[in-house]
């Protein structure tokens, strides 16, 4: 595929479906804040009750994620950042977009391994995921890594949306690009706060009960 089309596809997939997925994930996680352990279980159950859920996962999440991630690495390592010479905000965001892209790619692989893959292997059920998350975020190192992961993901998504609007010729002039910057950066703040809030919620004691039983299983896999 010619560079033009592969880059366009990369840009499109970042917003549709991956952008929608990250917002969906943010809302699902937030049910841990609002409804606690049971609320989170209900949200997970709701998602898994969707018809053709495996097809939605494959074509709405995994394949787009694989393409966006792999092609994104290619884009990231083609860059030659010059932020010490050109200290403007857009250039900083150019660099951060690439750094967060690499971080999020690693984070997503790790996170998928701990959660979705363990469900697929039958080591964990969907109902136990809240407990799995509890165990992970109670480890101070993992908690910090998760914080970095979700904040990076929030930035990469929000700033990527800003670039998407430019790359598809939707925001053309400097005023339009400035206004969309304000909107996208506000979105970054909101998404980052909601994800972080949910991570703190997973530290709550009510997630503990089912968590401890699984701790050993997970430890075996995490090493």
């Amino acid at each position, binding site marked *: 595929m010619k*560079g*033009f*089309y*592969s880059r366009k596809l990369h840009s499109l997939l970042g917003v549709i479906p991956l952008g929608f997925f990250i917002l969906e994930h943010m809302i699902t996680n937030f049910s841990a804040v609002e409804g606690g352990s049971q609320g989170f279980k209900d949200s997970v159950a709701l998602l898994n009750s969707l018809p053709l859920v495996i097809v939605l996962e494959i074509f709405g999440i995994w394949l787009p994620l694989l393409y966006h991630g792999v092609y994104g690495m290619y884009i990231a390592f*083609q860059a*030659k950042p010059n932020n010490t010479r050109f200290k403007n905000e*857009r250039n900083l965001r150019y660099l951060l977009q690439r750094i967060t892209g690499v971080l999020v790619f690693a984070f997503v692989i790790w996170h998928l391994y701990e959660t979705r893959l363990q469900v697929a292997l039958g080591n964990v059920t969907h109902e136990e995921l809240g407990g799995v998350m509890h165990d992970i975020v109670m480890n101070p190192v993992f908690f910090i890594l998760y914080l970095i992961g979700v904040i990076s993901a929030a930035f990469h998504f929000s700033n990527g949306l800003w670039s998407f609007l430019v790359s598809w010729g939707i925001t*053309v*002039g400097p005023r339009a*690009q400035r206004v969309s910057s304000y909107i996208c950066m506000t979105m970054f703040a909101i998404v980052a706060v909601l994800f972080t809030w949910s991570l703190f919620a997973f530290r709550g004691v009510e997630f503990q009960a089912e968590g401890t039983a699984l701790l050993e299983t997970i430890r075996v896999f995490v090493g």
Partner: protein
Amino acid sequence: MATADTKLTAKKVKFVVTRQDDPKSASYTEEFELDYRPGMNVISALMEIQRNPVNLKGENTSAVCWESNCLEEVCGACSMTINGKPRQACAALIDNLEQPIRVEPMRTFPVVRDLVIDRSRMFSALKRVKAWIPIDGTYDLGPGPRMAEKKRQWAYELSKCMTCGVCLEACPNVNEKTDFMGPAAISQVRLFNAHPTGEMNAEERLEALMEEGGIEGCGNSQNCVRACPKGIPLTTSIAEMNKATSKHMFKRWLGV
């Protein structure tokens, strides 16, 4: 004795010049110190070094090579990196520069010698995107359609591009790992596609932008628009061409 005294108190200007003897050899820096003269710029300083090629240590050296033509920031030949910023040396007034003044070639381009660089890739890019208006025929084609005055005014801004290469030097995506043509040629597509006669070949230029190393190479760092010495709205041009190529892509898919 009086002359000696004035020499001691005379204001000096110090330069650190990055030099390179030929395209393949390693670069090195050489320092020069010149007497200050009011209104001097980097080109007049380089001329001074040419007249008396003696470095700071007092050694005789070869004159520093550079390129320049118009000396009024319209030709684009004297682009170089001055105190870290790519710009036109003729418009770089010594009074406005922090010392020592560091002068380097724009290394995004192949260095020919000292500050002389080879900007051929920019001219190849202009050829690739057909940045001209074909009006030749075997008979008189008559006057073309008129351009609206309002359009002419913004298009004129784009026509100020002097292919100086500053935007390519500022762009983090123009480097040895990519074949991105850089912002200048993309903006020229917008210019020639805006022209009422040039518009007749608009699709050819858009398709050239959709080839390898074309518009997809932009990473939105927006350094180009801030670095452009002519104040050309390069990022607006790029976004406008993003819109035009996206539309063209769908038209091509759905139209046949």
